[in-house]
């Protein structure tokens, strides 16, 4: 039952071709970027990629690299840097990507249903909208206790959820360094969880602040220690995001050729430490940590 393992082993064991994979974190924060790179390196295919919130870098990378068959997300963009993620946009406009078209609350509802073990979940969002016309997992239902309608959404239970945390014990009791994103729900909804953490700490260390233990080890299958694993996104309480690298990515990802060049330069055949060295280097990494702790 040893859960602590390498990223390579964790991805190889728990992400299969065709898996439904939920990636945690959110815009440029706690994005499990190292895990996305590893999924690309292992050439996983036909994934249903679920984004609790818009983990933009990992989402766009996985789509661009051809790992994703279907995307479940209400949004994919890089905030002010670029409201629409380039590979995502291109893939949809080329009809290369199946889209589970939804409002954010449809995604919540699908995950809440899975977390609660029920087959569907009602929500007010989407009533009067067009989502149910293009997404068979969203239906209009009349309230059986009244006459108004709601949207109901079919449960989505990820085979595996991958989150990035500041700390974790070796059993997968893990703590974020600030905001929770949708990571609690994302872990509760999943069959299995991979915790990618900046630092594996002792059980007693975690137990000092039980209020902060938002990922509970019961369904954690793998704990991967990976310093700067969220780079270039922010690793909360550990380091800031690196806007320069996001900008470089967005420049390169504008074109097919540029995106391939990006993968060759930073991902394919590169260990995570190579990526850190190439993209940031020691001085930059230290600078990103300054004043955060």
């Amino acid at each position, binding site marked *: 039952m040893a859960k602590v393992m390498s990223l390579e082993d964790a991805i190889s064991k728990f992400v299969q071709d065709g898996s439904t994979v939920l990636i945690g974190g959110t815009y440029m924060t706690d994005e499990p970027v190292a895990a996305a790179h590893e999924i690309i390196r292992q050439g996983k295919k036909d994934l249903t990629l679920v984004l609790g919130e818009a983990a933009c870098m990992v989402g766009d990378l996985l789509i661009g690299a051809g790992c994703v068959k279907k995307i479940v997300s209400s949004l994919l963009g890089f905030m*002010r840097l670029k409201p629409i993620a380039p590979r995502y946009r291109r893939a949809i406009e080329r009809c290369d990507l199946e889209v589970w078209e939804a409002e954010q609350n449809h995604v919540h509802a699908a995950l809440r249903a899975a977390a609660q073990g029920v087959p569907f979940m009602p929500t007010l969002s989407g009533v009067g909208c067009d*989502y149910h016309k293009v997404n068979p997992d969203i239906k209009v239902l009349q309230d059986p206790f009244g006459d108004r309608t709601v949207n109901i959404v079919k449960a989505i239970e990820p085979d595996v959820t991958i989150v990035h945390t500041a700390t974790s014990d070796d059993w997968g009791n893990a703590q974020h360094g600030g905001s*929770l994103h949708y990571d609690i729900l994302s872990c509760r909804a999943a069959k299995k969880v991979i915790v990618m953490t900046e630092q594996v700490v002792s059980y007693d260390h975690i137990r000092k602040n039980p209020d902060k233990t938002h990922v509970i080890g019961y369904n954690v299958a793998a704990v991967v220690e990976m310093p700067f694993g969220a780079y270039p996104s922010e690793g909360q309480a550990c380091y800031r995001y690196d806007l320069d690298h996001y900008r470089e990515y967005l420049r390169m990802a504008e074109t097919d050729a540029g995106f391939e060049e990006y993968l060759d330069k930073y991902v394919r055949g590169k260990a995570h430490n190579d990526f850190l060295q190439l993209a940031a280097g020691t001085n930059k990494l230290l600078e990103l940590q300054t004043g955060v702790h």
Partner: protein
Amino acid sequence: MDTGTVNYTIAELMVCTFAREIPDYSVGGVPGVRSEVPLAAVGLAATMHAPNLVCLTMAPIFAAITKEQLVLTGFTSEYAREKGAVAIFEQEYMYDWLHKGVMQWFFGGAMQIDQYADTNVVCIGDWHKPKVRGPGGAGLSAAYYAHRCFIWVNEHSKRVFVEKVDFISAAGPRSKRLANGYVVRGEPMVVSPLAVMDIDPATERLRLKSVHPGVSTDEVLDNTGFDLIVPDHVPQTQPPTEQELNILRTEVDPKGILIHEEPLG
């Protein structure tokens, strides 16, 4: 824009217009993407007249910020980060508060908006083969469950203000009513670079509320793809006051984020 006395940008005018509509002690929220205008509006309101407002910000730090003066930074998140959150909770709870009717106001954006204030951020053209793909529906349908939905649109043209949106990603009051929706709130207030619009209760259609300084009613109509309701008297949008601009530039947005295209890393 030069009105003779004070120079200001369209973004600053939009910020001031929204800020005046945010009451003290109200609870509202701002979405996570490109939200410099709403955030500045909230910051300005908090400084000018609403020190007790509560603004929920989105990703990456999600937190209730109360009784705090807000300072605009590069990303939404940094509001909370710089000042320190009083609570950290599961992000989906904010949407619950919208659906429950707790939120007095919420901001929303749009790629397209039509005569019934239905909005679209999903796609232009047929969904199955879109001409332009939008970022996706986000939480904007939920935003319409706030008592007021503040919609800011960065372009006033016939390709944005359309007869009927290509995909209803957020349903205005009429579409919710026709679908027999459970709760109808979400009175829209739309601010574009040219004008302010709201909903005419009788027809449920958008009507002109005021035109910005230097803009004529005809200019608005010429750039609107549907029959905007025009009242007999259309006042001018009140321009930013010197005090508002001063607070905005020195306290709320000292880094000048509103006039930058990109965040200041």
